[in-house]
C-alpha cells in the first residue's frame, strides 16, 4: 500500500498507467513461501478472531495489559479458558480480579508456559512451570488430558508465536506455590508429594491473603516483557 502511494505520487498525471502498475505491484508484493494462518497470526490474533469462544479471555488480557507481551516473539504455550469456563467463576471472584490488576495478571500468567508445548510433549504426571512462577500439573487418563483439573477440549492450535490449548476451567494458582523458597527446600526430598498441594486450586481470597509480596509475579511479568 505504501509503495502504491509512492507510485501514485510519481505518476499522478498518468491515470492510464495506474492499472498496469497495480498489477505490477501484485508481483512486487509476493512473499513466495505460502504462509498458513498458523505462521502469521499470533496467539492474541487467534483469540481475538474467535470472539464466540474467547471474548472474556481477550477482555481480561486487555485489562491486564498483556496483549503486547502475548503478541511478542514467544514462543508461549497458552491454556486458554473458554467463555463458558469464565462463566463458571463466581461473579465476586471476577470482580475481585478486575479490581486488582496485579492479581489478574498473576492468574492470567498462570495459564502461560514458556516454549512450544504440544500435546505430544505432555505425559501423565508431568508438571510445567508457568510465567506466574508456580507449576501446573498434567494428568492424562481415559477421560482425556487435564491441566490441573481443567480438561483440554481442543489441543495444538498453532500460532505464529506459540500454541494454544483450549481448556474448560479457569486455572487458579495456589498461594503456597508462589513461594519459591518452599519449592527449593522441599522439592528435592519428595518431589511428587510436595508438589501436590501446589496444584490444588485455592480461592482468590486465599491467594490475595497469601501473597504479600509480588516478587515472583514481577519476575514473571518482566520475563514476558523481555520476551516480546
Amino acid at each position, binding site marked *: 500500500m505504501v509503495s502504491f502511494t509512492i507510485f501514485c505520487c510519481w505518476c499522478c498525471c498518468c491515470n492510464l498507467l495506474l492499472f498496469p502498475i497495480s498489477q505490477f505491484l501484485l508481483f512486487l508484493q509476493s512473499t513466495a513461501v505460502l504462509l498458513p494462518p498458523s505462521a502469521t497470526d499470533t496467539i492474541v490474533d487467534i483469540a481475538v478472531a474467535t470472539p464466540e469462544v474467547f471474548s472474556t479471555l481477550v477482555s481480561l488480557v486487555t485489562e491486564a495489559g498483556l496483549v503486547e507481551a502475548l503478541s511478542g516473539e514467544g514462543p508461549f504455550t497458552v491454556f486458554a479458558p473458554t467463555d463458558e469456563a469464565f462463566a463458571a467463576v463466581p461473579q465476586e471472584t471476577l470482580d475481585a480480579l478486575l479490581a486488582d490488576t496485579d492479581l489478574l495478571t498473576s492468574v492470567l500468567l498462570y495459564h502461560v508456559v514458556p516454549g512450544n508445548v504440544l500435546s505430544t510433549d505432555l505425559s501423565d504426571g508431568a508438571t510445567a512451570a508457568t510465567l506466574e512462577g508456580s507449576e501446573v500439573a498434567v494428568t492424562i487418563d481415559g477421560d482425556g488430558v487435564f491441566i490441573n483439573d481443567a480438561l483440554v477440549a481442543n489441543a495444538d492450535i498453532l500460532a505464529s508465536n506459540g*500454541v494454544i490449548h483450549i481448556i474448560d476451567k479457569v486455572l487458579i494458582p495456589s498461594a503456597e506455590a508462589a513461594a519459591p523458597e518452599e519449592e527449593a527446600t522441599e522439592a528435592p526430598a519428595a518431589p511428587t508429594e510436595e508438589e501436590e498441594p501446589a496444584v490444588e486450586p485455592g480461592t482468590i481470597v486465599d491467594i490475595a491473603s497469601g501473597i504479600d509480596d509480588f516478587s515472583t509475579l514481577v519476575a514473571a511479568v518482566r520475563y514476558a516483557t523481555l520476551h516480546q
Partner: protein
Amino acid sequence: MKIFGKVFACLAATSLLWLPATTAQTIVDIAAGDEQFSTLVAAVTAADLGGALSDAEASLTVFAPTNDAFAAVNVTKYLLPEWKAHLSSILLYHVLGSVVLSSDLTEVGQTAETLEGSTVEVTSLDPVMINQANVISADIEADNGVVHVIDGKFYDILLLVLLL
C-alpha cells in the same frame, strides 16, 4: 580380471545413477536433485515429512518454494526442534492431496484445501499466482504427483523500489 571388475563396477554405478532418474522419481527426488530446493529439502527433513512426500502411492500437488523464496521467512527459527510442528504446518500448507495442473486453473479466486487444513487461493492467472507467490515453473511431473515451483524474487525489487 581386475580391470573387468572395475569396468563392471563403473557400469553398475552409472546405471544406478541413471535408473532412478528415468524410472521412479518422486517429488522428494525432484527436490533433492535440484540445488535451488536445498532449503526446502532441509525443511522437509527437519519436519520429518520426507516419507510422506516420497510415498509412491500418493497423488500430490506440491508448491515448491526455491531458496530465494525462503529468504522471506525466518527459516533458522523454524528449523529448531521446538518449532517442528509449525514448520510441518507451513510445509503442509504447500501440499494439496490431489494432482492439480496449471490447466485446471480457470479463474481468479479458485481455492484448494491444503494438507495443513486451510486453503490456498489463485490470486492471478497471468502470471499464475497462488496467494502471494509467483508460479515460475509449472507442471513438473513426478511419479507421485506434480510440482509447481514458486518464487518471490520480485519481493527484492519491491525493497529496492522502497529504498530508492
